[in-house]
């Protein structure tokens, strides 16, 4: 996992509530057996006018000029603004894989669905929560300002606009530490293998029916 410390990048606004993971990456692309290559089909149903299938050359498809990410001014965006309950629906990790593969490292929204929120951290994406009123302001500024950028400083837990206005955000300490250092959860957990074995030994006595072969 790639670490994330600071990021200054172009901002794209996705002004819809309850964006579900079926919209972030539709089901036909879940048949892949690898983690990469989902970027061209991120928001597939909204982004293209013709139906997409795995294995197609997505560069030749008809793009939907109405969809926000297709507008020239948002090309190369690294930060996505979203609305309430972003990432609801299925547990598919293909959703953060697609966002990451497209180029997003930071999402800013007033709230997220729980599973998606977790999945982001496991893939080096920082999902920032800011109050709805701040979100309204960021959406308005993004729309009003071509080339609008934000700076994110994870260590300081701040989002700063180009005019210098700054907003603090909360983040769980352990998640912050892992993201700042690009650490793999499994390696960290295996440092506690002794505790896991001790737990199992105790439970095999307390609740042996949980260990039937």
């Amino acid at each position, binding site marked *: 996992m790639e670490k994330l410390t600071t990021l200054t990048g172009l901002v794209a606004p996705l002004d*819809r*509530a*309850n964006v*579900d993971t*079926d*919209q972030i990456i*539709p*089901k*036909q692309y*879940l*048949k*892949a*057996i*690898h*983690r990469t290559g989902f970027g061209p089909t991120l928001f597939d*149903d909204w982004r293209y006018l013709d139906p997409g299938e*795995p*294995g197609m050359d997505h560069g030749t498809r008809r793009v939907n000029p109405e969809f926000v990410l297709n507008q020239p001014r948002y090309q190369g965006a690294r930060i996505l603004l979203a*609305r*309430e*309950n972003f990432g*609801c*629906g*299925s*547990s*598919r*990790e293909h959703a*953060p894989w697609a966002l990451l593969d497209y180029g997003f490292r930071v999402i800013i929204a007033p*709230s*997220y*669905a*729980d*599973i998606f929120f*977790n*999945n982001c951290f*496991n*893939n080096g994406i920082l999902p920032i929560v800011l109050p709805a009123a701040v979100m309204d302001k960021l959406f308005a500024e993004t729309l009003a300002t071509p080339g609008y950028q934000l700076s994110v400083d994870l260590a300081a837990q701040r989002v700063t606009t180009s005019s210098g206005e700054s907003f603090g955000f909360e983040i*769980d*300490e*352990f998640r912050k530490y892992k993201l700042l250092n690009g650490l*793999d*959860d*499994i390696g*960290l*957990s*295996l440092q*506690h*293998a002794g*505790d*896991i074995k001790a*737990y*199992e030994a105790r*439970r095999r006595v307390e*609740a*042996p*029916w*949980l*260990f*039937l*072969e």
Partner: protein
Amino acid sequence: MSKTLYDKLWDAHVVRQHDDGSCLLYIDRQLVHEVTSPQAFDGLRLARRDVWRRTANLATADHNVPTTDRSQGITDPVSRLQVDTLDDNCDEFGITEFKMGDIRQGIVHVIGPEAGATLPGMTVVCGDSHTSTHGALGALAFGIGTSEVEHALATQCLVQKKSKNMLVSVDGAVGPGVTAKDIVLAIIGEIGTAGGNGYAIEFGGEAIRALSVEGRMTVCNMAIEAGARAGMVAADEKTVEYVRGRTYAPKGDLWEKAVMAWRELHSDADAKFDRVVRIAAAGIKPQVSWGTSPEMVTAVDARVPDPARESDPVKREGMARALKYMGLQAGTPITAIEVDKVFIGSCTNSRIEDLRAAAVVAKGRKKAANVKQVLIVPGSGLVKQQAEQEGLDKIFTAAGFEWREPGCSMCLAMNADRLEPGERCASTSNRNFEGRQGAGGRTHLVSPAMAAAAAVAGHFVDVREWE
């Protein structure tokens, strides 16, 4: 100190508490399917890690499998590769898999409880958000992403932060014709799709206690549609009777010991919940969703709502967009909405009781002329066999419905079963998102009885008025 059911399940599985409040939580059972596992097994291979406890895992292929004749295998090469990859991974890592062709194969959330692989008091995870289903047995069950699938394979644990406690109490008795599906749709309509974010929901109250264990699975299944990763119901005598005799359930002395422990799987009388929602069961009518989010749901005798009457601008715009996508006019009576297809199946409603409820409605009747296709997809090979022994398949085929092989099918249309653009479907599944059942498809979520009735009438009807 008094505890909720969730507190008890959580506390029993904490291996280690981290300084920031997160925990290393022990996982008793992981269920594995083909869509969210290939990258996890790949990760293990890359890091040269093995599976921590092979027998804690059970796999099956469900999302990609065809529901038609399987003698030729899977024709779609991309789907086939994913299922073959699961088979190879399970063989390589020594994990039991109910493969396609095995009568025990089926939807992962149907086969877990059916095989007794899900037991009361367990922690159960799967790379699938509808893992909440298993909470119906008094277990702590929740969906995870692929990184966590890999983590659970490698360590038999997950790093988790405890959720808050919510009690949804459905008080009193529901009226005739009102099912578990209607109860859970009404709950989602009440608290919204984000209402349970950050919570584990315990479903209680007389109406939940009165449900069969299968009905409770339908309710817990859709906890995630209310935003909660985990939904659960206290274990009781019904739970014990449901589990008794199943393949992986304990036997003999161990059974007696287990049952003693399971009797503690309920919230203490004075347990404290962070949020309590009370719903009067008597007020719940058969439900039909009208929009593109499960919270966009109403009673069958109501009308499609008018966005103009919504004061919240974000919600109003969402409603207007949903009506446009669904091709519906505000004010239209729900019963005036005609359907093109009907789907009865999915991890929400594909168990034997669901099929029986649909068969009661379908018996001696025929599919309406305007309905192009009615798919009946049992949740597992064993459910299919049971239904055939009861003659349900004959009732369905006589009505012009199609009797299929088990799998996820048109719940998410990863196989060949899908809606064409613009087609409208009465579906017993769990999500009515845009394109969920096929690009441009329009989904209305209903109970099995309501779906069967819509298939016969050609439009939604109130099953309470049907004989």
